[in-house]
């Protein structure tokens, strides 16, 4: 049932460029789709596996730079850029994840945060590679079989296809036995070990996959912006992904997807001064954490469970 609705929604989204000529609206559409993918990847490592990772921002940035550099510095295509964005981030995640996942959850959070900061510093300071604060402007539009995705409307198809593919993959993963094992690890790790399952490979795989997907999303987004610079690593993006996951409900696949689409339009609605918008973001974070810590999806679930509990007792 849910899948049918999702299919219809996906098709509806595909139709957007046919319904409007406004670059502005299509731009919001691209942002909505890409941010939703990044949030879904965060949901995999945080909602399903239970590990709060701030490293996503770093992966997003590395992905953006990797695809930009592939095209601009190394003469590759946009498509290869995406592949590199995914592969490099997966490798980095494995290298960083291996020692970090063996420590406790407190250290994990701080290390991932530090990682994101390090990436920001490298983006700013390793000028030979990243061109520093000036960034790399004028990223060329992607080309496939001679067809140039030069307008926002055309680029939207790429964003759409990318999101559908990534979300489909994540859906398959989250509803599989592997997804269920991740949830089990989050809920009761000692029990998982007592049942013959080693948690480490699962955590590493989850971390690496979320890194690869977030990186690829960053790669797509940088070409949407047409420029990559250290501002791409602004903490604002991490906050956005976090708020999407928290409001949707960490651990709920559809909750996060719906939340992602809905909230991406929000910044445009909240077109006050930048500071005011951020204050509202902060307030949302605090209030939701107190009133609805499991997000909208979690709240709905609790209601369903209370009814079930009454029936069974």
């Amino acid at each position: 049932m849910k899948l049918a609705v999702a299919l219809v929604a996906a098709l509806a989204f595909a139709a957007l460029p046919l319904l409007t000529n406004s670059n502005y609206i299509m731009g919001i559409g691209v942002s909505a789709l890409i941010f939703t993918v990044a949030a879904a990847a965060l949901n995999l490592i945080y909602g399903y596996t239970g590990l709060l990772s701030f490293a996503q921002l770093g992966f997003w940035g590395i992905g953006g730079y990797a695809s930009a550099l592939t095209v601009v510095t190394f003469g590759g295509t946009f498509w290869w850029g995406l592949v590199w964005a995914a592969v490099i981030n997966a490798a980095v995640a494995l290298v960083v994840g291996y020692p970090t996942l063996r420590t406790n959850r407190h250290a994990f959070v701080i290390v991932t945060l530090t990682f994101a900061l390090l990436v920001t510093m490298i983006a700013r300071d390793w000028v030979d590679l990243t061109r520093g604060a000036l960034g790399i402007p004028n990223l060329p539009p992607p080309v496939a079989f001679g067809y140039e995705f030069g307008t926002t409307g055309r680029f939207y198809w790429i964003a759409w296809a990318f999101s559908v593919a990534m979300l489909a993959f994540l859906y398959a993963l989250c509803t599989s036995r592997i997804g269920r094992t991740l949830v089990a690890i989050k809920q009761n790790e000692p029990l998982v070990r007592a049942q013959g399952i080693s948690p480490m490979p699962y955590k590493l795989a989850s971390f690496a996959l979320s890194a690869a997907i977030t990186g690829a999303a960053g790669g797509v987004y940088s070409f949407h912006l047409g420029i990559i610079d250290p501002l791409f690593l602004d903490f604002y993006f991490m906050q956005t992904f976090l708020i999407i996951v928290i409001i949707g409900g960490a651990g709920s696949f559809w909750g996060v997807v719906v939340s992602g689409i809905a909230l991406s339009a929000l910044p445009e609605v909240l077109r006050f001064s930048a500071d005011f918008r951020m204050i509202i973001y902060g307030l949302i974070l605090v209030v939701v954490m107190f009133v609805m810590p499991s997000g909208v999806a979690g709240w709905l679930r609790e209601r369903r469970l209370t009814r079930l509990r009454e029936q069974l007792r």
Partner: protein
Amino acid sequence: MSAILEVTDLSKAYAGVHALDGVSFAVEAGSITGLIGPNGSGKSTAIDCISGFQKLDGGKVVLAGTDITGRAAHRIARTGLMRTFQTVRVYERLALSDNLAIAAQQFDAATWVDEFLRTRRYRDAIEASEARARRLVELIGLQRYYEAEVGILSYGQKKLVALAAALMPHPRIVVLDEPVAGVNPSRIREIEEALRQLNEAGETFLIVEHNVEFITNLCHRVVVLEQGRKLAEGTAAEIHTDSRVLEAYLGMTPEMAVAEMESRP
């Protein structure tokens, strides 16, 4: 009868205290063996060390002929030793059916590739797992909760779930860490009955418990620990009349114990 589990000379110390000091015993296949002792005797430490949740300082653990000493907990589980925990551990926010399925999943031949392609191997594994789960759920009497989230069950019911989960992968031995602690008396009888039936069907159990009546009713053999050492070993009746055990554990003399046993209905 051969020994399924043989532990020799287990030792473990923390901060200068010998939690375990040269403990050796064996569990025969098909038996229910009890491990009792007063607080601080080392029972929980022994279980944790045997199942790989704590590291031994010395000694050997052999499971069905394989030396599992020092192995990681998940590898020990894969070799056929399943355990439960003193404070019950279940996946609270997953369904009962999922709780049981996860317990068996490491032990079937299907990989994620099989799952993705929905191969024969995968479907057979799922069918077998579900059949076993349903049988075990019937045994513990929780059929109506099969699709329900385990979090809504009572503490005693959760202990039954943990027991069923431990049995899912056809283990060689199930080690139960205080299976009836914190459980109300009517539920205790249920658990006792379930264990007896399972044992008659061939399952082997090592039970750590404080509840002496429970142990006496169920166990063929009992090992008594005190302050990290094995104090005595024998049948339930022998233990009940062993003067060293009575003194250390029950605080009674043999005469008092006999009088007590006779006064029971």
